[in-house]
């Protein structure tokens, strides 16, 4: 495919990132692609699936390839908000209150098993994710830029979990389901190709500055008016769908635009095409929907795909 010369930094980075991640997370091109869409569009990522399919591996791998500071939070029921954001302590030497930043102050934050912690702690994450800042004792502290949060959760566990409320799910740009590996991939894992063991070999391919520039480039990717219409149309149609109790918010359209831009850049294009919108729509929209039968990511994804399959694409 002809690749225009003006596709710059971000595309190169995306290629590099994809290659690096593929070495560790074997046979999962779609989760890798969507994880990078979240990263490059400046959003946050939620990895969802049953235990043992590599959720944490993907999250860790993404954290490693992005340079800069990295913190990991293992969410537990007794985790307190202050343990995430940090606390003010009185410094005896300087005779004043001093802020000790918590683990959220990092470029990449991995929140493992996010649904195991209490709603109180989960909600502390809200402000951090959306506003990229935390407030402790009335003082607001900006989080580092870039700030990329990767969370994992097992949706099929019920005992001792606190399912994310709709507002929090909305904060994640993309939700990825890992899916079971194929037979060949599983065999490769057994033979020592990729997997947790190879995580140590993974090196950062991008530094915070590079990521900032890449995100800026993604966000300025050209989007034709017809494509903007095409972004709004599925959201509107989904909202009007009778089986949807709570539809996608206007924020989701903005997120969908950024995600489609990231997808375009990763595909080597300097503009958003309807194909890009289509390939990220389900991942961006489905976790925001509340169906009349209750939250069900699978059914929601099916519904979004069926709606997208009925919305006419712009002809040009």
């Amino acid at each position, binding site marked *: *495919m*002809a690749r*225009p010369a003006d596709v710059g930094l971000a595309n190169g980075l995306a290629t590099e990132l994809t290659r690096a991640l593929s070495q560790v997370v074997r046979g999962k091109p779609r989760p890798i692609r969507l994880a990078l869409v979240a990263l490059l569009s400046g959003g946050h990522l939620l990895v969802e699936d049953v235990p043992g399919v590599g959720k944490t591996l993907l999250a860790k791998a993404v954290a490693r390839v992005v340079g800069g500071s990295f913190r990991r939070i293992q969410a537990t029921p007794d985790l307190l908000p202050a343990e995430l954001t940090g606390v003010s302590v009185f410094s005896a030497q300087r005779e004043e209150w001093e802020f000790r930043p918590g683990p959220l102050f990092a470029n990449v934050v991995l929140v493992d098993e996010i649904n195991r912690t209490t709603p109180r702690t989960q909600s502390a994450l809200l402000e951090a994710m959306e506003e990229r800042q935390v407030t402790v004792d009335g003082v607001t502290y900006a989080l580092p830029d870039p700030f990329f949060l990767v969370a994992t959760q097992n949706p099929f566990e019920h005992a001792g979990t606190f399912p994310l409320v709709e507002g929090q799910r909305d904060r994640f740009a993309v939700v990825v389901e890992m899916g079971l590996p194929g037979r060949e991939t599983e065999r490769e894992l057994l033979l020592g190709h990729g997997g947790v063991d190879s995580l140590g070999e993974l090196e950062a391919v991008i530094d915070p500055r590079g990521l900032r520039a890449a995100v800026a480039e993604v966000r300025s990717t*050209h*989007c*034709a008016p*017809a*494509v903007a219409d095409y972004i709004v149309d599925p959201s509107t149609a989904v909202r009007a*769908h*009778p*089986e949807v109790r709570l539809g996608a918010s206007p924020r989701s359209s903005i997120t969908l635009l950024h995600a489609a831009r990231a997808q375009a850049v990763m595909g080597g*294009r*300097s*503009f*958003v*095409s*309807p*194909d890009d919108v*289509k390939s990220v729509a389900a991942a961006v929209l489905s976790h925001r929907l509340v169906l*009349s039968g209750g939250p069900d990511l699978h*059914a929601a994804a*099916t*519904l979004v795909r*069926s709606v*997208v*399959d*009925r*919305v*006419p*694409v*712009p*002809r*040009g």
Partner: protein
Amino acid sequence: MSVLERLKQVNARAEPEESVALRVAVLVAVLAAALAVVTQGVGGPLLRLAVAGLPGAFWFSHHARHRDGFWLKLGLAIAVLVAFGSFLGSLGGVQAGSLATVQIPLAELFLWVQLLHALDVPARRDLMFSVVSSLVLMAVAGVLSISMNLLWYLVVWAVAAAASLVLAYRSELSALPALPARPRAAGERRAESALVHDGRSRGARGRVVRAVSATVAIVVAVATGAFFLLPPAGQARGLTFPSRLAKVLPVPNQGGLSNPSLGSADPAKGGGRGEGKGEGAASFGYFGFSDSLDTGTRGRPDNTLVMRVRASKPDFWRGQTFDVWDGRRWTLSTERSRVLSGGSPLGVPAVPGEAGLPPGSELVQTYYLEQTGPNVIFGANRATRLYFPDPRVFQLPDGTLRAGVALQGKAAYTVVSSRPAVTEEILRAADLDPAGVPPAIAARYLALPPVPARVSQLARRLTASAPTVYDKVRAVEAWMGANTRYSLDIPPLPKGADAVEQYLFEDRTGFCEQIATSLVVMMRHLGVPARLAVGFTPGQRNPFTGLYEVRGSDAHAWAEVWFPGIGWQAFDPTANVPLAGDGGLSRASSGISSYLAARLPHPPAWAVDVVVGLAVLAVAAAGVVRLRAVLARRRARRPASWAEACLARLEAAGAARGRQRRPSETVREYAASLRRGGVGDARLEEAAAIVTRDAFSGEPVTAGERALVDKVLEDVGGKT
């Protein structure tokens, strides 16, 4: 199989109809039609009772819809046979071949069948039969009707019949098995089907309304077009014509004149004949329908509808004539009348002066009286046959007819007249030889009291250059038209004054009595036999019933001039009645504009301005809306871009291979799909990427890329 079983099998019931709404709609339609027929005077008390029982019959047949009903059918069949027998019996009393007499018993028979049928309408098919036969009843009522009252029955019937057709169709649809739903993905089927179904039912209602209104519009347009284009009902060619009397009340003086509507204003009674007072003003009470006509009387009857006349052409409906003039008052020289008696129709013999005339064109007139009036029998000039309910009528020497009974409202009779087929040329050709006037005519219709000198001079001066009698008449008419004014408000006639002189030289205004009298006097003075006739102008034709509606104010007096070989010919400068030789009506809708103009309310002038202004505004607004829509469409229809053209070519190539593009498929997806299907080569997907870039990147692709795409599309057969 026994005969009884066979009968049962043949009469096996269809599925009973459960819809009560449908039954009610059919009942209303049948009831409206039956009442329409009954109000036209069909049937006796028994039939009226049966019509009143219609709702009960429908209720019964609804309750019995699931029953076998064999014995009911048998009973109904017997009852229908009885009705038919009664119909045959009633035919025995009428003359063979007289259709008009058959039509009433036939309508009665049909009504009976309909009423009996109402007892056994279990299925939709039976109800629909009821609706169709109610249409026939409406047609019967339409034939019998002479007034606009039928309109209300027609409206009720039309609404009910339309409703029952719709309800029957709906009921038929509900009996069909529902269509299976289209299979869909499990997760969305329920919700989506709810969505789609809802949308469909809304759309369906819109479609039904559109279809119904379109049908109504077409029917109205076709009916209006037919109404305006079709010729009117032609001359009745009947065998027997309607005639009826509500009550037979002999008049006091057999052969004499009786006009109860004049009351105390009757000059014959001597009282109330005030100078200049309009006493004879009640409806039929035109003072001309009396033994004498005083031209000093003023005032005219009101606008009451006095009678309806069914005739194929307009004419003067003449009541009687006057021959003796004394300078102020018209009287009859003789009251001697001849008794005509016999069956209906009654042949009317010719009177002196009219004997041996060639037969003219026949004009059948049926008079339906609405008010009690004089016992004169109206008829266009020269009645030859009379259909009259009373066997005895009286003929005066002038040829006009009088009844021996009082003619009250709801009486009807038919006169067949032979009208001389005259035109201007024929009248000019039939010029009078003064010596050739038969003595009988000359004695009665040339006598005059002394004519004032001024009148005499005027008559001679006006007609000096007129070569024929016809031209003399026209000359006098023309002079009066130019020099006098028609008005109902004229000063009282001074005592001792000559009415003609007063009108022509003093007042110079007058109404029909003065105008016609002047014409008669001047003609007699010139040696031309003439007389004064009184009666009615044709009245206004109601285009919907085809009947002439004659009102009290249509009472009129006009002159009749005698022509050898033609007889009496009416002349009147004020009434617009064509000569018999001229053409008649051209369209069924003739007279509709004047009919409507007379009935529609007269809005004030500003209302017309407002309506016109609103209409102009509405048209302008509609134009602006339309223009904007056109402009918007033109704007939306911008020229197709190169990318769109390429997509169209690719679609054509795919469609040619039986693989249409789905609207939700992008160019690249479509190209990939075609590629998997073995269309083109790897460059196809590259071309799709270029097309996508051209469409959405905001920058046109290079000429080289375009050439590449064109080449690829050409290879896969995408025609430009």
